[in-house]
């Protein structure tokens, strides 16, 4: 099975909050490193208060993928940017809890509640 490449697209959140959204699609593994880092660099250019990682198009995250997310989280924390997530399947929600990533990134069931969470 050829590995599905990761697509990562950046868009501003609706409502002028300045929040950037990264829509992820594919697999988060070693092959996705360049795409994820490039998308994060693009999203963080405007110094947004928060970046929402949308995992709803992601069907596979492996340990290398977790390491990539840790890397992005470390960058975000240096600049005081909050990272939020949405679209994680229940399995990966569990993995975010096991790895304690959930302690540093709020997990929301959908985009609207994530954005509401930022403004609160």
């Amino acid at each position, binding site marked *: *099975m050829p590995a599905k490449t990761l697509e990562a697209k950046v868009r501003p959140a609706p409502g002028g909050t300045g929040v950037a959204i990264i829509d992820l699609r594919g697999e988060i593994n070693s092959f996705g490193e360049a795409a994820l880092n490039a998308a994060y660099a693009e999203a963080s250019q405007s110094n947004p208060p928060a970046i929402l990682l949308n995992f709803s198009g992601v069907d596979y995250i492996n*340990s290398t993928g*977790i390491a*990539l997310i840790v890397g992005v989280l470390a960058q975000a924390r240096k600049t005081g940017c909050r990272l939020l997530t949405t679209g994680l399947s229940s399995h990966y929600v569990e993995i975010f809890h096991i790895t304690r990533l959930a302690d540093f990134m709020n997990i929301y069931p959908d985009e609207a509640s994530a954005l509401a969470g930022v403004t609160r």
Partner: protein
Amino acid sequence: MATLLRNFWQSLTGGDDRNAEATAAPVPERPREAAAPAILPLEIAPNDPLAAYFQSSPGTVEVDRINLDSAALRALKAAGVKMVMPLVSQGELIGLLNLGPRLSEQDYSSDDGGLLSNLGAQASPAVRVAQLVRQQQLEAQARERLEQELRVGRLVQQTLLPKELPTLPGWDVAAHYQPARAVGGDFYDFVYLADGRLGIFIGDVSDKGVPAALVMATTRAILRGAAQRTSAPGEVLEQANDLLHPDIPPKMFVTCLYAILDPATGRLVFANAGHDLPYRRGRAGVDELRATGMPLGLMAGMRYEQKEIQLLPGERVLFHSDGIAEAHAPDRKMFGFPRLRDLMASAPETSLVNFLLAELARFTGPGWEQEDDVTLVILERTAAPREGVVAWRAVLDFAIPSEPGNEREAMKRVAEAAETLGMPPARLERLKTAVAEAIMNAIEHGNKNRPEIPVGVRLLASDGALAVRITDQGGGRPIPKAQTPDLDAKLAGRQTPRGWGLFLIEKMVDEMRVTSDETTHTIELILQLKGNENASQNA
């Protein structure tokens, strides 16, 4: 110029087969008088003096002035050709531009000759390129036809191999089939006999490609039929030989060994039609299981000797095809039967398939072009089950090349089998993550990303649980104990962001065991079939 062009008919001719392809271009009709340019099919034999004459001509040649005893020259004259511009590319005659008489009925002038020479000089390379392109197209088509035939052969063969391994309490049955690119005609099969006994076939058709695949399919059907009619292996081979012999293509034959195991007693009865001798690893060492008989399909009315052995707990038998023993190292040294026999003697108790494949990979080195199909079937009587010990049966046993990304396919195969066994979706996800991580570790850390070294994957099932055993060839070094990664240190940059694999595996499974010997590491993942994690799933 206009007159000249209207007047000539082009001829792309030549004296060898390759050039003949150029003349095969569509020719509507042989031109008459002032017809449009057309192709004159003309063969110049390689020994025709005209070929040498044209090849050395620097420019146009007036046909009437040539004085040679040449069949091609007579053909040119008969076709009314007056002037010829030989097309020569890199010293080779590749065609002719032929002109009939001028419409004006005057002779060709030296200007005409010069113009034609110019045209010829420009046309030659273009014609050569066209010929080469055509030649390559034909070669590509021929290759494609061959590939297609190999694909069909492979498909027939693989469709007929058993999809599942027999599960017998107290026995481990493993099989591995690795096709050569050209498909060697190997097969193996299991037949379930009425009284609980198991029939085991292994064979090899003496040819490759589609013909071999069809003979293999026929042989398999005949053997299956015969095995159901009679329960003596010698008689089964005898009947199969007599049925196969009238229909098998000349010079083709099938080697085949048939054995019947009684799992209750460990009695193994077998007969052999010229196939490679199986090895038994018994308590006293390794011996060959000999029984004489001619290959199937060579002669009618053959008799097959029948032998019998008793397999004790802990003993194993290796059935194999010559693909492994006749594999060659880069220095052309052959793997050989003695080596295979020695390996049987020294094999660890873990998966024999993986051990042999790893030894084969070590012997042939990286980049081995596999010469013939490699087929292994292993029958092992497991040590007598003790009270309270879980009885595992093998569900899957396969190997994958150590290339990053291959863990996905293996993960899928294991998950599909686990789903069939009734594992609920949330458990399946945990199983998938654990299996993928363990295989990634085996590929990267155990086998150092070397594709020729396989990662072995076995899935076993007991009544309420699954075990996945993943074996790499990185033995000799212990696998480090899983430690809880320090996320704060990672976020602060004091630790690498990586290092989650083993930790994740441990969290996903109910039990994880690591065993190592001098050559291999095996990580065993155990999950209860039904878990109780659904409560925490909706976090």
